[in-house]
């Protein structure tokens, strides 16, 4: 084996070892790398107690309520299995909508309501023109009525 081939192999081996090390470190920090917790985790008390954390999920359909002061909103965040009620005072991002993704930062109060200090909208990886979105919505509604009947 020539010296340069040996060096090449050594480099390749080094990168592999590093990759494995990085993989182990990342899996060890798995919990710390999570950006938000799901409503199921919140309900199961798998969240930091007494400390602020982020909750992420979908804004449940027909759950958005505005308080008379015009700034405070209440909505329910769901992962389709469990849901958590959220209260927030402030300006919501433009993409905030029922049925869309959301990430909120805050604490769970004694009454089980998540009091958010910041609400961020999460959008998905689909990009479509308004007509296509309209068509998708209609198809979904049609399916709902079919199942409903």
């Amino acid at each position, binding site marked *: 084996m020539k010296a*340069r*081939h040996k*060096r*090449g192999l050594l*480099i390749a081996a*080094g*990168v592999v070892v*590093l*990759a494995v090390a*990085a993989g182990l470190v*990342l899996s060890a920090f*798995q919990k710390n*790398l*999570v*950006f*938000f917790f*799901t409503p199921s985790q919140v309900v199961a008390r798998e969240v930091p107690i007494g400390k602020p954390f982020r909750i*992420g999920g979908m804004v449940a359909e027909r759950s958005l309520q505005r308080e008379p002061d015009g700034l405070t909103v209440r909505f329910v965040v769901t992962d389709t299995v469990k849901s958590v009620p959220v209260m927030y005072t402030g300006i*919501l*991002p*433009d*993409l*905030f*909508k029922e049925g*869309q993704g959301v*990430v909120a930062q805050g604490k769970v109060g004694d009454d089980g309501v998540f009091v958010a200090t*910041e*609400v*961020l*909208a*999460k*959008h*998905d*990886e*689909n*990009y*479509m*023109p*308004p*007509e*296509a*979105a*309209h068509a998708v919505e209609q198809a979904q509604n049609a399916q709902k009525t079919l199942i409903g009947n």
Partner: protein
Amino acid sequence: MAAEGTGINWYKYSAPHTFYPLAGRLIPWFAGLALVFCLVGLYIGFFVAPTEARQGEAYRIIFIHVPAAWMSMFTYVVMALWAALGLAFNTRLSSMMASALAPTGALMTFIALWTGALWGRPTWGTYWVWDARLTSELILLFLYFGFLALEAAIEDTRRADRACAVLALVGVVNVPIIYFSVKWWNTLHQGATVSLESAPRMATTMLAGMAMLALGFWMYCIAAALHRVRSIILERERRADWVRGVT
């Protein structure tokens, strides 16, 4: 191992004094293609592609953001490959190519982060969050900066090349982390729209614009790197006879 007669003798071009004129001849082609692809891509992106259903016009940042982000990762991998070649084979040109790619990669990473922040504000409601995707991309920028700083800090180019190569190779671990971060962890950043596993999740004209700009950015990166490597060749080989002939 030289290809006999029929093919191109690649080894011939691994010598800086033969690569220098070749790079000079290639640059106008890549620069021209970059210009054409970018103009076509921008035209499609801003005049042909439809408005997005939920994000409105803000989504059009994607046409710059995604190609820049792709190139920031791809450039790093290519840079690390050149660095590894330089480390293993002690070829001068390989290390020069790695050095030539670093500033372009840093630029692409910066563009990706900057446009991402400008896009995040109207859509998510924030310029920056410390989620896995954004943080790992920021680390990529620091890796490029580290590469450039290390190179500038060591006087002896051979030692600088070796140190930089090790840094580049250590940092390459970060690239799959960036790419898969949105899959492995829950992040604010959405998942991949274009991937090998599934059909692209966007309208065809949107995809066409993005693909054109991605090609344009790719060509630009090649042109910029070739242009820079020519300067590096002249600088490092300044004592060689052929360089005296050039200047």
